[in-house]
């Protein structure tokens, strides 16, 4: 996270806001609710309290405007810049402007969700700069995330609490524990257990929680992105992923559902059920999957057993499940992620990666062998 240099912060914890006008994209009640919830995101973790006023000058003046709106920072029409806000201060300080050439929405993933945009802008209005953490709300680019289950990421909590301190009035209800703030996974964590790994059009993709790293083989740098910024329809916390190069599809699996994507777009007919891929109905969850280029088979791992699926005939092979150790001698633990690269098979078990080639175990490696720290 980053805070505004120069210690720009509100001198009081009691702040006022006013909604000066409304966007025609949503009902007034939807705008009111989105703004209220966006402020609550910050009030929940700090001593800041927000009161709405209906006339006069509020600390945070909220307006929907287009193009040149008199503050020296004109908007640019649809897409591009969605909104901006001014750091704490008198006059225009703290004010938030939304580009009304955008299509704002209340809950769906189409258009730009006003709650998410507003919560980000209010972060600026309270004294936060953009964060370089791709999982943070204060990351500068917009990506949709599930609004109903939204919890302020830990990076943003750390940032705002560095300015205003924590909320000391949080009622402790043992019946309803507070959801934990999501922490962006760190590739340098030696205990990192990846959710899934796959190749995708020549790149390696490493999934963890709601994010993934993409890395070009033999590169020392990787990019981290929210899963939903690439595939808005995809779930977080996936169980397994694999690429079918012949169909140019990448499959993401969570629970008993399978999603297939062609580039950024979901393939027709997906999500499907695991059983529609031919897996027996008793299989409720798989732990890893990989596409074997040599045989044209996809292997589905269920802990220490695996099934084989023929991509050509689109049928499961007979004689499975087998014990993983039977096909991969030396692999005794649960397989948590898997992929194949340059003819070698890599099976992950927790933070360790087992390299197989020529029918035997070659090396035991750490995550950062492929995922740069």
């Amino acid at each position, binding site marked *: 996270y980053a805070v505004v240099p120069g210690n720009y912060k509100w001198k009081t914890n009691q702040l006022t806001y006013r909604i000066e006008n409304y966007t025609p994209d949503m009902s007034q009640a939807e705008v009111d609710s989105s703004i209220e919830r966006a402020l609550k995101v910050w009030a929940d973790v700090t001593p800041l309290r927000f009161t709405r006023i209906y006339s006069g000058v509020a600390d945070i003046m909220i307006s929907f405007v287009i193009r040149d709106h008199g503050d020296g920072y004109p908007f640019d029409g649809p897409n591009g*810049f969605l909104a*901006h806000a001014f750091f704490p201060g008198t006059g225009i300080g703290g004010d938030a402007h939304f580009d009304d050439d955008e299509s704002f929405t209340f809950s769906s993933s189409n258009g730009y969700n006003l709650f998410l945009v507003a919560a980000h802008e209010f972060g600026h209005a309270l004294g936060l700069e953009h964060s370089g953490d791709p999982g943070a709300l204060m990351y500068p680019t917009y990506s949709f995330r599930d609004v109903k289950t939204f919890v302020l990421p830990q990076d943003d909590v750390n940032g705002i609490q560095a300015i205003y301190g924590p909320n000391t009035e949080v009622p402790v209800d043992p019946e309803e524990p507070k959801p934990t703030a999501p922490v962006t996974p760190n590739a340098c964590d030696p205990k990192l257990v990846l959710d899934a790994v796959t190749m995708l059009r020549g790149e390696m993709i490493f999934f963890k929680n709601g994010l993934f790293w993409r890395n070009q083989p033999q590169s020392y740098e990787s990019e981290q992105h929210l899963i939903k910024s690439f595939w808005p329809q995809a779930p977080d916390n996936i169980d397994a992923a694999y690429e079918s190069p012949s169909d140019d599809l990448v499959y993401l699996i969570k629970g008993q559902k399978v999603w297939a994507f062609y580039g950024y777009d979901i393939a027709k007919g997906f999500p499907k059920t695991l059983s529609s891929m031919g897996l027996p109905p008793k299989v409720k969850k798989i732990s890893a999957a990989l596409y074997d280029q040599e045989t044209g088979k996809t292997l589905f791992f269920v802990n220490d057993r695996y099934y084989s699926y023929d991509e050509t005939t689109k049928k499961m092979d007979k004689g499975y499940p087998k014990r993983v150790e039977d096909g991969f001698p030396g692999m005794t633990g649960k397989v948590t992620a898997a992929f194949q690269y340059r003819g070698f098979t890599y099976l992950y078990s927790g933070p360790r990666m087992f390299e197989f080639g020529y029918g035997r175990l070659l090396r035991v490696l750490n995550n950062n062998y492929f995922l740069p720290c």
Partner: protein
Amino acid sequence: GPVPPSIGKEEEDLAKNYLKKLYNMKEEHTRSARSTDHSVSEMSEKLREMQEFFGLKVTGTLDSETLEVMKKPRCGVPDVAA
């Protein structure tokens, strides 16, 4: 390997506009060779800043991945302190 698509004038303008608005890149006032060299190196420097912030490969040159990030919908507040 695949050849990256070349960057057109329109996309270069988009990048310049992006860096002026968000990375405090100065306007080019004159067309002399010396000032052009200066603006190229400033653009390269600003591109480096932007690429570093977004975790992209830091090259100082406008490549397709950098452009992809520049085209994403975003907040209009600069990523760097003025």
